């Protein structure tokens, strides 16, 4: 039914991630080989401190890799300049925006920056895309509110709308569901899933909501101490990959319900 060979958006070859200073190199994970296809929703799961953020920061050029390659759209990540990269990759970070005095519309409009002229004037086309992103994330009624008036859940939707407005083939979100209640966690992830279906974008997000991710994602990247595996949730379950996620003294993965249970 679907095209047999889907376009690969992001690919890593023997990627090593970690931190280096003049004297020391701290490798967090190595030999990472993952491929993200167009039109996939991919979750990245793993224990605290396993290196999820480091991996995302390396994939997004916030931090340098310690070895291997990251290839986005068949082009080496290091050969992108800032503005080129901004047109293929947008981010939603865990950090708060500095100025909450921006209105929702203004904040979403900043997503159009890579395309606007030197002073940042919005064209007709820009306005269309901004309004479309606002529709897709269901925040029309917040449009003229200031960001400091919003709840955490609303603000997260706005940040996602901003990434949509950037109109990139790949969107990467770092823990988009933290600080949100159960309903909003599901809401945000469902929103991402719908976006992937509707627009054939590729969305990669890190999360601790493993049970939600299993239900919603096309693929999951499971990060453990010794390896990083990308596969469909189903295969992960049958191969027992979730069992090695956490120390086994407290919680175990129950295959029949696809969730973690207290031991």
């Amino acid at each position: 039914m679907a095209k047999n060979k889907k376009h690969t958006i992001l690919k890593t070859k023997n990627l090593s991630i970690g931190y280096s200073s003049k004297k020391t190199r701290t490798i967090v994970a190595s030999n990472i080989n993952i491929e993200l296809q167009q039109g996939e929703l991919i979750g990245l799961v793993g224990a605290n401190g396993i290196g999820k953020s480091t991996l995302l920061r390396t994939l997004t050029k916030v931090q340098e890799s310690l070895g291997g390659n990251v290839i986005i759209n068949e082009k080496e990540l290091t050969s992108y300049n800032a503005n080129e990269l901004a047109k293929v990759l947008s981010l939603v970070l865990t950090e708060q925006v500095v100025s909450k005095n921006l209105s929702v519309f203004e904040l979403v409009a900043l997503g159009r920056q890579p395309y606007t002229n030197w002073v940042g004037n919005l064209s007709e086309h820009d306005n269309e895309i901004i309004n479309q992103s606002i529709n897709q994330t269901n925040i029309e009624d917040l449009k003229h509110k200031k960001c400091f008036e919003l709840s955490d859940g609303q603000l997260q939707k706005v940040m996602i709308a901003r990434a949509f407005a950037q109109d990139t083939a790949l969107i990467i979100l770092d823990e988009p569901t933290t600080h949100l209640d159960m309903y909003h966690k599901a809401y945000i992830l469902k929103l991402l899933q719908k976006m992937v279906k509707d627009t054939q974008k590729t969305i990669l997000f890190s999360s601790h909501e493993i049970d939600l991710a299993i239900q919603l994602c096309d693929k999951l990247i499971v990060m453990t101490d010794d390896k990083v595996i990308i596969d469909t949730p189903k295969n992960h379950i049958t191969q027992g990959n979730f069992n090695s996620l956490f120390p086994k003294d407290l919680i175990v993965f129950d295959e029949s319900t696809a969730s973690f249970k207290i031991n």
Partner: protein
Amino acid sequence: MQKNYKFSFLILTVLLIVIFFANISLGSVAIPFKDVFNSLIGVTTSNESWQYIVIDYRLPKAFTAVLVGSGLGISGLLMQTLFRNPLAGPFVLGISSGASLGVALVIMGASIFGGFFATLLLTKWSLVIAASLGSFLVLLAVMMVSAKVRDTMAILIIGLMFGSITAAVVSVLSYFSSAEQLQQYIFWGFGSLGNLSWNELLIFVFIYCIGILFSVASIKALNTLLLGENYAKSLGVNIKKSRFVIIIATSLLAGTITAFAGPIAFIGLAIPHITRQVFNTSNHKILLPAVFIFGAIIMLICDSIAQIPTSDYTLPINAITSLIGAPIVIWLLVRKRKMIF
């Protein structure tokens, strides 16, 4: 929304022009408004010295006030956005402390060179050059150290540290100076908008315009920086380059202003806050021109007050800016009950 701003800008521009002419009409010598107007358009006035006062003293002073107020306001705005800190002002990079050090060295160190050199050193140009050199050197040091740090906040701290060092050197110098030298140094510290000839004003305007060009070129980057540096980077902003351009713009503006008018306090910190409160926006495309007008208006008002119309006294402009500016900021914050940043 846009229309709204246009109307506000229209009112403010008219207000600026009115206050500009009011500023020229007021001064220690009472000149009828008709004669002020006549001197401006070049028609002979009933008193020739009036024409001289208006054209060669009051007019350059009013222009200086416009440049100083708008320039300091804009550099304050740039610094507050760059450092994500509402307490930042044009002098956080050590510009005014560097200028103070240069001037202190010239005034208090002049005696070391003695006699002939001392008189040569104490011309007005030597103070301008000393202030420029001082601020340039301190700024250079701050830039060199900050090129090594990745965090923008570190630059803020480094600038403040350099400020402390230069202030300490000035203290040591003052300790060994005569009362007369101290007085001269303190008078420089009061700031002054007058005393600029048309030629000096020309140099001032030239450098000021370069600073403004750099500021305008940074508008887009500044707006993106409202999201934080990592977001700005992900939106295609070259952080290092933008940071450099913003810092250069500030140093050109604040540096020349300090060189020609002395370390004018408070305006750079207060004007951006006043503007944000009135316009209720963080968009630099609106803020930058608005800060320009507000800065010019407030500086012109402060100057008129400092002159104490029809009296022979001139109060230190530095005291007036704080006396006027501080209550305005307090009043705005109390009335709106929240800070807009």
